[in-house]
């Protein structure tokens, strides 16, 4: 790949006990790009995220951040190296206030001035968070919690942001808003982002590059514009159906991934 990549996975395998969840995934994230990983339930998307951020150790393969191997490091060490993970289902600290949640995101940092600056920035991205700064995070709506989770990750001043299903449980309108913010953050800060999504149409239209995952393996990779033109993507991910002779069609053609 021509542009320099910030993150590189080579033949990564990870397992939950006896069950291998990802079987040899190789992917690379160009610096400053949004890369999306799509796949059905159980394809291994979240596992990839957890393996990158060190929550799960790979049984095989290497993960390199800016050329340095990071596989097997403790999650906090990985955060210190600049990867922040927004987990699936947001996972804000419900009993802490919004402000304290954000400060937890800066836990690894010492530069008070920088932290204050980033806090200000977070409130600028999501003004609603400033309004609710003193409120317990558990009392926020789903969309607000997602905003908080993203802001909390940004408080770590990451080089690479991992977003696991930001649209989960959000209305179409909110999903759109969240993705617009993600694009904006990417543009303004030149922040590299990996986003895992079920909402393929949304992810493909906002990301630069995409990987399709099927039962733990990459079956397709290309730029998002090109992916959107592929027949398999149209039928299986974008729900576009060439209507049959009867005006309906229930059967699915076989996937070929080309």
């Amino acid at each position: 790949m021509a542009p320099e990549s910030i993150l590189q996975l080579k033949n990564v395998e990870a397992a939950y006990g006896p069950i291998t969840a990802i079987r040899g995934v190789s992917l690379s994230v160009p610096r400053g790009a949004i890369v999306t990983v799509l796949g059905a339930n159980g394809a291994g998307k979240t596992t990839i995220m957890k393996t990158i951020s060190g929550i799960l150790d790979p049984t095989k393969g290497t993960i390199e951040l800016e050329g340095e191997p990071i596989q097997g490091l403790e999650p906090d060490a990985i955060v210190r190296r600049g990867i922040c993970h927004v987990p699936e289902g947001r996972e804000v600290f419900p009993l802490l206030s919004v402000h304290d949640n954000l400060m937890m995101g800066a836990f690894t940092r010492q530069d008070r001035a920088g932290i204050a600056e980033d806090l200000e920035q977070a409130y600028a991205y999501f003004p609603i968070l400033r309004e609710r700064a003193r409120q317990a995070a558990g009392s926020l709506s789903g969309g607000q919690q997602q905003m908080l989770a993203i802001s909390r990750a940004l408080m770590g001043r990451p080089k690479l942001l991992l977003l696991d299903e930001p649209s989960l449980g959000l209305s179409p309108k909110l999903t759109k808003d969240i993705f617009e913010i993600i694009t904006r953050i990417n543009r303004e800060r030149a922040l590299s982002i990996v986003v895992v999504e079920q909402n393929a149409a949304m992810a493909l239209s906002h990301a630069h590059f995409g990987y399709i995952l099927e039962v733990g393996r990459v079956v397709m990779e290309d730029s998002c514009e090109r992916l959107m033109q592929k027949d398999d993507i149209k039928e299986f991910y974008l729900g576009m159906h060439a209507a049959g002779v009867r005006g309906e069609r229930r059967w699915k053609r076989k996937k070929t991934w080309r």
Partner: protein
Amino acid sequence: MEIDTIPAMFWQAVTTRGDKTALRQKELGIWRSVSWKDFGNTAREIGLGLVRLGFAPGETASILSNTNCAWVYADMGVLGAGGVCSGIYPTDSAAQVEYLLADSGSAYVFVEDEEQLDKVLAVRERLPELRTIIVFDMEGLRGFSDPMVTSLEELRRLGFEHHRDYPEAWQACLRGRRPEDLAILIYTSGTTGKPKGAMLSHANVMHATRGNAITLPSGEGGERMCFLPLCHVAERIGGAYLAMYSGGVMNFVEKPECVPENVREIAPTGFLAVPRIWEKFYSEVMIRLKNATAFERRAYGVAIGIGEGVVERRLAGKQISFPLRAAFWLARTLVLANIRKSIGIHRCRWIATGAAPISPDLIRWYMALGIEVIELYGMTEATGAITVNPIGRSKPGTVGVAGPYGEVAISTQGEILVRGEHVFMGYLNLPEKTAETVVDGWLHTGDVGNFDEDGYLRITDRLKDIIITAGGKNITPSEFENQLKFSPYITDAIVVGDRRPYLTCLVMIDHDNVEKYAQDHDIPFTNFASLCRAQAIRELIQAEVDKVNAGFARVEQIKRFSLIEQKLTAEDEELTPTMKLKRKLVNEKYRPLIESMYQKEAA
């Protein structure tokens, strides 16, 4: 009733075997048995249902479905009603379906499900002779109604009523055909041009089936797997009709992907398959060995070594000493039995391979496991088998002796000629092609071969596949290709080099095994194309090519090869429905790739 037609044979089986099991179909994880009586009733309802709809003797019905029990029900229904039955591959496109329905002049077509139905609906306007479409599985079609479409259930209801109203009708139908009448159409998969409909008469089929009962013995109650396409001569004649004749049980697998698992569950007593399946089983064992413990690998090495020693002596006609026999018994009981069991062939009296060339080494491997292997040679135009390796006197590398089928001769050009009752009636609508193929009763096979001193036939190549290099050297590509296919990493290969300075090869890799290799050796890849492009994978295939090259003279060696970077499926035009690469089409379609193999040298 004289048993000289398929319906007569079928009804004889139904009346004599009654409540015994005729077939099993795996549905949602459960094997369901069907007795001969029920099989007979279903076929009768289908046959009389067609009669009720106006089906006349001699009319054609096509079946567009995967291999399942409904396929044989419909087949027997159509033939029982005095019709002609033609099979269509479920992987064919709508355009191909149109061609086959039009060429065969089908008045009725049975379709498996919604997916197949859509193909016929898309082209039916251009098929004036088509009257009714019968759907096996109505799932997803509850709300659909069309005057031309009916369900198998509905057809059977009509047949049931017809039988109630005219109890004698079915017997009259069964007697309606003479042995010399056309029974089935089998379209040749056509590695070149449009498919041609080979016309097989009842006499052809019965003659071939009687021969098969001798060469592929399977007593009543013998278990057979049914999973190859029934539109192909091998499964239709050597599988289904042989089972009806001899009383074997047909076991229909759940899905094509489930074959290995279903084989293990049934443990067939006789197993006819194409080389691709045998290659697949072999590579599965090889891959499993790689993951085995060092002790297991040692045990396998010793045991297969003993097995190979025994096979070698047996093939050379030498006595097998008592210690060797004892060692082989031990090896078989302790080690090789497990390998046979892991494939599911431990109860097999024989396994048979045909329809495509196979590597003799692979045959020897199965023999070393302690299994009788029957390699046979045949073609659609000869209603299946032409020569067969006799059980116990098999010679790997040959396709056996003419046996009970008919005469086999070699023409002055070296072409294999066949004469006998199994030689087909001709190609439908193609009298000139027929005249070219059958001359004075001799079927010209288009294959080149010779007999050895014991009368075993050895096939050297297809007449039209022979490559003549720019240097003037005649090359028979299949020899090289078959050895290459023996590698677990290579599924198929095509040697190129006609009028070229040297030979090159297009290789289709085995996706699963190569992917596994890449993973084990930390070779990064994402999709199929990047897997093919990985340097280490090219080196892996290069090593396989080098291995085969070592056994050939310099001019016969492959200088360069390319990998086909697209994963091909049965739906792709490059493959025949039996998953063989189509030589001519591949040669044209991959022209730029082939050219590149001849340009690099200059650069």
